[in-house]
């Protein structure tokens, strides 16, 4: 087996995602970037003395005068507009690429003044992945405005595996970031970083010098009084950071290590006031939003035939929803089938659906089966009108949406 085939296999097995996922990730990343930077005054950096300008070697010819405040302000406004467009998916390819370019220039400019901050690095790679590696047009306004173009394009198309390169890229950069940080600690201080009270000292210094504004005041001092516990924490941080690359190859690591890294970064903010908000946003690339599976040829419905909805007939909520939609179902080319119907056993098996997973809905549309809450959302989309807004439920990660929906039956 060639190296490229091995790599492709690794990518395929470890980046299982629905096409909807990347579209929702695009919404979250660009939307949260907009919210974070909407009040940020980039022009303030342009008003600082030129002596603070520290461009990298290759860009020494560029002077700080080029970034005059009015120009920086104009760039900022343009970036915010592009971020909104990229978030909602309007002219999504152009707006995503524009948002990446302008954002990279602005963030680079900010980090060339006096001090380079590592907290913005990963979000630049997230924008890069969404703009350059794959521009997800799912979950976008473009899909509503230029419906015909997408219908033509998606006819006969299957999920494009290359799309998942974007997800994998961000995960790799995130894993490398943590692994580099862990190795850096070992290289600089050795194993003593976790045994000589460094973390306790750091907490004491931050707390006593009022360095920043911790979200939980007093927590840093309280921990600093117990250096033994701080060392235990520090000894946990080292292996955690070094094990970050496991998230690329193991499903279990993604379930354990990725949340632990998220909690570690969040606790820096709570205890020390050192925040990495945009790095935390990048953990969205570990979440799943859609839930669909390709059906075997025998189970596929006719492309022109009605979409079929299998529901849990024992659930009161399911029956209520079906009752609500049944009248309109015929006109919307939708057929409801109770889950205890003999016709659907094979379908449920092929779509890997079981009642024990709390899956109360299954929607079959052409070659695709949508499961659980994703099926419910797709059903709302088929209903049209105001119900179509139900698609916004895709913004809730599946790990939160599915338990809720199985409890409610929706």
């Amino acid at each position: 087996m060639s190296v490229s085939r091995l790599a492709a296999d690794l990518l395929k097995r470890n980046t299982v995602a629905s096409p909807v996922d990347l579209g929702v990730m695009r919404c979250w990343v660009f939307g949260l970037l907009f919210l974070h930077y909407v009040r940020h005054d980039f022009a303030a950096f342009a008003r600082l003395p030129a002596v603070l300008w520290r461009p990298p070697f290759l860009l020494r010819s560029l002077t700080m005068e080029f970034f005059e405040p009015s120009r920086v302000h104009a760039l900022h406004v343009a970036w915010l507009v592009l971020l909104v467009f990229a978030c909602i998916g309007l002219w999504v390819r152009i707006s995503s690429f524009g948002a990446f370019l302008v954002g990279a220039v602005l963030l680079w400019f900010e980090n060339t003044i006096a001090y380079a901050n590592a907290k913005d690095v990963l979000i630049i790679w997230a924008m890069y992945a969404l703009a350059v590696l794959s521009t997800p047009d799912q979950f976008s306004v473009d899909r509503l405005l230029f419906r015909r173009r997408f219908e033509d394009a998606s006819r006969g198309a299957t999920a494009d595996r290359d799309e998942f390169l974007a997800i994998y890229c961000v995960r790799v950069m995130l894993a490398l970031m943590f692994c580099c940080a862990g190795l850096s600690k070992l290289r600089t201080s050795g194993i003593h970083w976790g045994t000589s009270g460094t973390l306790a000292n750091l907490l004491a210094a931050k707390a006593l010098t009022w360095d920043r504004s911790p979200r939980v005041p007093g927590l840093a001092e309280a921990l600093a009084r117990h250096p033994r516990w701080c060392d235990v924490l520090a000894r946990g941080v080292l292996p955690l950071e070094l094990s970050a690359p496991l998230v690329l190859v193991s499903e279990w690591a993604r379930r354990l290590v990725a949340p632990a890294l998220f909690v570690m970064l969040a606790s820096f903010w709570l205890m020390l006031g050192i925040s990495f908000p945009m790095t935390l946003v990048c953990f969205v690339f570990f979440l799943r939003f859609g839930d669909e599976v390709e059906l075997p040829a025998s189970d596929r419905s006719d492309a022109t035939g009605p979409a079929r909805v299998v529901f849990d007939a024992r659930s009161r909520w399911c029956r209520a929803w079906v009752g609500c939609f049944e009248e309109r179902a015929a006109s919307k080319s939708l057929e409801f089938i109770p889950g205890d119907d003999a016709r659907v056993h094979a379908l449920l098996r092929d779509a890997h659906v079981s009642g024990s997973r709390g899956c109360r809905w299954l929607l079959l549309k052409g070659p695709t089966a949508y499961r659980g809450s994703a099926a419910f959302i797709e059903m709302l989309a088929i209903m049209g009108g105001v119900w179509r807004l139900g698609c916004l439920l895709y913004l809730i990660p599946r790990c939160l949406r599915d338990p809720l929906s199985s409890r409610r039956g929706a």
Partner: protein
Amino acid sequence: MPVVGTTRSSWPRAAQSLFKMARVLAFLVPVSIQSTYLFRQADGWLFENFSLFSALSKPTRDTRREDGTELPRLEESSYWVPRVTRYSIYGVRQGDGTELRLDASAYWAPLDLNRIRAALALVARASKDDEARLLEALGERYRLNAERGRHRGPPLESIRVYRVTYDWTAGVDHPTSTRTLVMER
């Protein structure tokens, strides 16, 4: 509405495979560059070691007792580097001339304290003019942020920058500090 499937253009096959290869390269190049930092220590931005807090805090005090025996590793007093020196910004209130410590990000946003301290270190090595320009810019930020409701600090007569040495040899609960005025505007 989300729809399964992706846009496929009707490009010739050669152009498509070229595009695909460019995409794979666009993935591999940054990943490869960042991977090299696993094996080397270097500062930078965008590609770097993320070496925040990686330096070891070594005890500056003698870790031996008077009788020559080593302090136990886990004894609390042997842990602390009980001193740290930082630039600290104070404002002088208009009217009564009393000082107010201004080490909170809300006063200077979007400039963070790390950046301000790095900037103070740079201008301290540069000219008095640069020093004055930086303090003027800081004063302007303070005023603008007050106008925008980001903080409720009083109007300032001047800004003072001190080098403050914090000492907590007596313990976390009994810190002391000494300071030297280095800039004023």
